[in-house]
């Protein structure tokens, strides 16, 4: 996804359309808008926005910290129909689309992935009797039904461009290939985020200054203790009774 900050007016329609589409309880979010500035930058006074969501990173640290044992699963390439079987944790990166997803039936709700994400893109839904991690899926279910992601469909200024980065004819590919798009990375944290931002220099400058992560949070994730896991299992059993 590419988000054009020149077009974004910071209206929050994306954040609410996502909440409505997926019934995300208030207090949690998959999709957000933060306001930045007005603040001085070397390129002039900036007043811009951070429309954020999961970056579906190339090297998703949330996946590598997932303690749930891998299980084999067969994936299909939506473009070619080609199949591939790989072993996945409860959260995994789709081998064809690149989307980072969660297998809710296997997620044990330990919260490791939530802690690991340097972007704070995940949350643990503790409103459920059986808490689960949750995050943006790029609206994979809607894509399968031939729909656009909810945030893209509602974006009032068409600031969000969604497409297949590997398809050279796609608009997203062209923008990214032009080198004009930036990503929220730093020397310390560079895990290949797949949400790109374009905009005036002052605005991308401020966005990177404020929101490019520096903390390698995944390195501090403690593997869940036995206690955590037992508690999770007990919680599940309790709801079963």
């Amino acid at each position, binding site marked *: 996804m590419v988000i054009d900050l020149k077009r974004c007016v910071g209206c929050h329609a994306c954040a609410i359309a996502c909440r409505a589409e997926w019934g995300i309880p208030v207090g949690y979010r998959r999709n957000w808008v933060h306001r930045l500035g007005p603040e001085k930058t070397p390129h002039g006074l900036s007043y811009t926005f951070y429309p954020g969501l999961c970056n579906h990173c190339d090297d998703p640290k949330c996946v590598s910290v997932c303690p749930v044992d891998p299980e084999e699963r067969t994936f299909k390439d939506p473009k070619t129909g080609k199949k591939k079987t790989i072993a996945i944790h409860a959260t995994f990166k789709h081998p064809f689309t690149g989307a980072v997803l969660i297998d809710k039936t296997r997620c044990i709700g330990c919260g490791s992935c939530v802690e690991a994400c340097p972007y704070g893109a995940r949350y643990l839904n503790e409103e459920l009797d059986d808490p689960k991690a949750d995050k943006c899926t790029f609206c994979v279910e809607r894509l399968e039904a031939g729909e656009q992601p909810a945030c893209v469909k509602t974006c009032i200024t068409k600031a969000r461009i969604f497409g297949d980065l590997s398809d050279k004819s796609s608009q997203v590919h062209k923008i990214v290939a032009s080198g004009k798009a930036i990503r929220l990375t730093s020397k310390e944290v560079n895990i290949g985020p797949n949400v790109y931002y374009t905009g005036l220099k002052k605005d991308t400058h401020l966005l990177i200054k404020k929101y490019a992560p520096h903390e390698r949070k995944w390195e501090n994730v403690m593997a869940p203790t036995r206690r955590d896991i037992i508690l999770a*299992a007990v919680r599940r059993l309790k709801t079963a009774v």
Partner: protein
Amino acid sequence: MKRRRFLKLSASACAALAALELQGKGMFRPAVASTGDAQGLPGSLGAKEIPSVCEMCFWRCPIVGKVKKGRLVKIEGNPKSPANDTRVCARGNSGVQLIYDPDRLKYPLKRTGKRGEGKWARISWDEALDEVAHNMNKVRDKYGPHALAYFDHGASAEFMRGIFKALGTENYTNEPAFFQCVGPAALAFIKTMGYITSGTRQYVDMKNAKAILLVASHIGENVHVSHVSEYMEGLSKGAKLVVVDPRFSAPAGKADIYLPIRPGTDTALLLAWMNFIIEKGLYDKDFVKSHCTGFDDVKAAVKKCTIEWAAPICDLKPEDMKKAIITLAEARPHVAIHPGRHATWYGKGDTSRHQALGMLAALFGAVGVPGGLYFPTPVKKGHSECAECGGEPETPDESIQEDYYPFASMFGSPTSKLVEASLTGKPYPVKLWGINGVNILQTIPDPYKTMEAINKLDFIFCEEIMPTETAMWSDIVLPGATYLERYDAVYSYDLLTPYITVRQPVVKPMFEVKSSYWIARQLAKRLGLECFQAKDIREIIEEELKPAGLSLESLNKKGGLVPIKAKPYRKRKDLKFKTESGKINLSVTDFEDEDLDPIPKFIPTPAPPKGYARLIYGRVPVHTFSRTMNNKWLHNEWPENQLWLNDEVAGKIGLKDGEEVVLENQDGYKSLPIKLKVTPGIRADVVYMAHGYGSRSKMLTKAFKKGASDQFMITEYINDPFMGASSHRTNFVRIIKGNKVINIPDLCPIPPQIPRFKLKNAASAKTGGKK
């Protein structure tokens, strides 16, 4: 057990449990919050889609309500709409939470405590309507028809307006929409261009403009989908953007030229710009010659208004002012001079400021052309007698409208005059207020005076959806259906992408709420008025659709909306304006006839008194007025407002970003606590907060006391001498931190042309406030 093995075990235990879940034993709560339908499709996929029209704000975007098992799960834009297609804003998306807000007014209520106390008894509809009708009759019999006054806004208010009209009061419409908002701009353009270039909507073609001028229009902070998207299309096609605003607003962030003007001096800038383009020959001579009247008078009137004269008044650099006007002039005639909407700023000079904007557009020949001001497209729509109630009432011997402000009657009765009449009985007693679709205590300046006036009334009732401050102060509250639960009239849109559509219910009304038509019809019956004969509002809709060759059924077969071909532009030779002269009036003789300035003059508004900053306000994109602050999703997105404070000022008085302060205005009134946003993006002589926060209704459980209300700081107002609107930017505040009063340092030198505001009671201001 080794940790790894344990993990494996527990993970498979989980898998086993999950399998159990899948067997559908019904013992588990769903693992994910799901709105899945019968076919098990997730999210809003597979929902039944019902076309309708949004009313989260007055722009009224076409929508589809997505319904699963009788419950509204999502709202999207109507894909058939050429104005917004599938897009809706944050508020449009949040209509779902208006219907299901647990704080909604559910049943008719009767006040049991003191006015404003919020003590209620649930009553039946019959009892509520009988009581309203009885009081309307009683007041009318005792004091005459003009003792009845109706404050109205939005779609829900339209039918009931007819009842007040039929009862014979001149005060049948007092729309805060005009007297607190667009009135001066609307009047200026009607008299200059012959049509309401800026009213509910603005006929300005930003989409095809090569340059755009915004004078304190905060597009993106106020969000109306087609308006914002056309503005953005224009910018993305390379239009240059000039923004004039004391605050670095969202559009200022996108501007090519930003002018941080001193508040109250916009007309000086516009006059200087007009003089500059006339002197330099940067105007459209041919257009002015063939399509405008009064050019020579204007030329003479603005002669002394040089850039150098205006620069110290406006506190701008002459070179920036010139650069901006040259940028606009180079784009002529494809230059979008935005006519503005909210215009009730300083009282004196508001109509003139918008007149000057119209004049600038005319001098650029930017009217009736792509990229300029354009004409509404006529839409064939029928009229049903059933939608009407009474004829035009007689004007009393001394009129609240005409005897005070010569152009007020074009819009109704000025709200501030009605408040005064209710308080003083002059020029005649006003004893009953009906309120529909507007929270007057968060709209009309000096809410303290409004509350006093309410206490003098014999009776006050409202039709509302939420328990607003105004509902709190009512004797009877009639719970209205939301726009998602009722039919309304046929809606046509006559801007760049015209269409005809209709509002229809997407779900059944909740609780005991009733549609506006039903309420008006029942009330009319009780008052013995022969109107609203149609039993079902759909009869009215069918009547209105007929001339377009449509019926409700055929319209719905087409997706609930039919686009219409746009006719916004005219060939120059065909240009004709609906003014007496058929031309654009650069000088307005109608104004002259009333001893008002026919050509705008710069009238300075007093600068802040020492120690104070001017309070300005605006919108956040997720809220409409004070109406949506309790909406669960919108509240979550932006629960409270912040006070923008200049960083240099903050540094001098030792205040930091995020700190909580209280404001005290020039009359000693104190605000609720508000957090500071310290930024270089605001002038040192103003502070800013978003409007609509700081609710004083405890029945709005989410919005109550969240943030501060600008409205409760606006106690000083001046009426526009043309049409009687009341000013909102004529109030000044200083900061209270803990028990300490902190004066705002004086960092903006004031030129001799601008007087300072004189504090009424310097002593009381010194010792601190009253409330």
